[in-house]
């Protein structure tokens, strides 16, 4: 009987397809670690420049941490509630409490995810050993720039706010003219990434926003604190004329040129308290 030879190329492609479909998150941590270790090697020629930039960035970050703490104090003042709701207040100000304990990890951006055809991510040199876990918000100054995706011991891959991942959907508030007090009583929208460097805020009504308005995170998206800047409205309209208006938002920070960021840690909350 003549033996039939299995074609090797299609078999190898089928194996790749099986791995991609059956184990989509396989070796996530290992891949992140590998990328973290390879990128500094690739950038070794610019080590001196990088060191100078890093010193400068460190100084800037120090000021940013101070500013974050000032913002935390302001949020805590606003969050003052009657004593009988003290337990509830503790739950609601968890992000501020994280900042209060100084639970902010400074991290350097290593690679900016150019290896992907459609996704927007970057790699940072802070991982599980620093307390970083998936889902934590990543900030630069008072701007939200991403959400932690995959984590290994020493590195983490961050999904940028303009990535199309469902993890990067946030409740958003439009602040007309950038004045926070005008936001009282306003409805919120849903902010999602578009993978082209912009964000799209949907579920808005006619006249609810205008070009130049500031967009910040709204309540209800644990553990992302309320009030972090998402960007500035670039265009506002109802292109498909279905009565639902959308705002195209440009992030304040240049997400392609981030050099260092802060990861906002969340302290463990007693499940019973959270359930209340």
């Amino acid at each position: 009987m003549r033996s039939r030879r299995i074609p090797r190329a299609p078999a190898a492609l089928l194996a790749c397809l099986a791995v991609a479909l059956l184990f989509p998150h396989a070796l996530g941590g290992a891949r992140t670690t590998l990328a973290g270790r390879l990128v500094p090697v690739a950038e070794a020629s610019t080590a001196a420049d990088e060191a100078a930039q890093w010193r400068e960035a460190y100084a800037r970050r120090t000021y940013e941490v101070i500013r974050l703490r000032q913002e935390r104090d302001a949020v805590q003042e606003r969050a003052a509630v009657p004593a009988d709701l003290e337990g509830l207040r503790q739950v609601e100000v968890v992000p501020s409490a994280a900042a209060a304990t100084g639970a902010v990890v400074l991290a350097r951006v290593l690679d900016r995810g150019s290896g992907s055809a459609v996704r927007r991510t970057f790699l940072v040199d802070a991982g599980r050993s620093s307390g970083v876990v998936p889902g934590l918000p990543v900030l630069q100054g008072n701007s939200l720039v991403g959400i932690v995706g995959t984590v290994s011991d020493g590195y983490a891959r961050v999904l940028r706010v303009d990535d199309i991942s469902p993890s990067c959907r946030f409740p958003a508030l439009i602040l007309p003219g950038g004045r926070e007090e005008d936001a009282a009583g306003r409805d919120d929208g849903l902010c999602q990434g578009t993978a082209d460097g912009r964000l799209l805020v949907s579920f808005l009504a006619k006249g609810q926003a205008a070009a130049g308005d500031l967009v910040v995170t709204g309540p209800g998206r644990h553990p992302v604190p309320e009030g972090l800047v998402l960007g500035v409205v670039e265009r506002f309209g109802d292109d498909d004329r279905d009565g639902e208006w959308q705002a195209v938002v440009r992030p304040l920070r240049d997400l392609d040129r981030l050099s260092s960021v802060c990861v906002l840690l969340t302290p463990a909350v007693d499940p019973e308290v959270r359930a209340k």
Partner: protein
Amino acid sequence: MKGAGVLLGIVVVVAGTLAVPVAWVQGGPFPDLAVLAVVYAACSGTPERATAFGIAIGFALCPFGPEPLGQQALLLGGLGWLVARLNRNLYRERIGTQMAVAFLAVMVLRLASAGMAETSLAREAALAARSGGIAWASERGATASPGSLHGYRLGSLFSGTLAGALGTAAAVLPVFAILDRTGLLGALESRAWRRARSAGV
């Protein structure tokens, strides 16, 4: 020794891809180096070699993106296999054919990547919802009319892909000339390609 050239080629492709800003790669007319290398390997070599080369580049790029393990390997390996299989029906030595193949390859590959990303995003959404983080957004998104977001995203995806495909097609002439002169991917070349090249076709 020739294997070292192929390895060097993979390193150059990965380093070149990572060295440029993501906005250039995804939205600008920057050539897709991985596609260029795989199309060259497919035009000059056998389906097996082109597939193996594509899979190797895909796995080398794998740590630098959030896509599922093996997705890029599948797409680039599939591209190498398909183009090499079609070689007998193509005038592969003609620069116009090579440019057209590179253009189509980028278009198909990026759109396939976007389609596969949508599939894996559904799983990401389930994971994120399980952690409770995006319950609000999921509930809101379920009642959304998806046309506007999808329309915006498709528009930007098509314009970015078109720019990348044009950039890649324009880069075929210099990149293929460099690869021909240096013989970097010589280990992948078939005898027919070598004969055609030495005959000056």
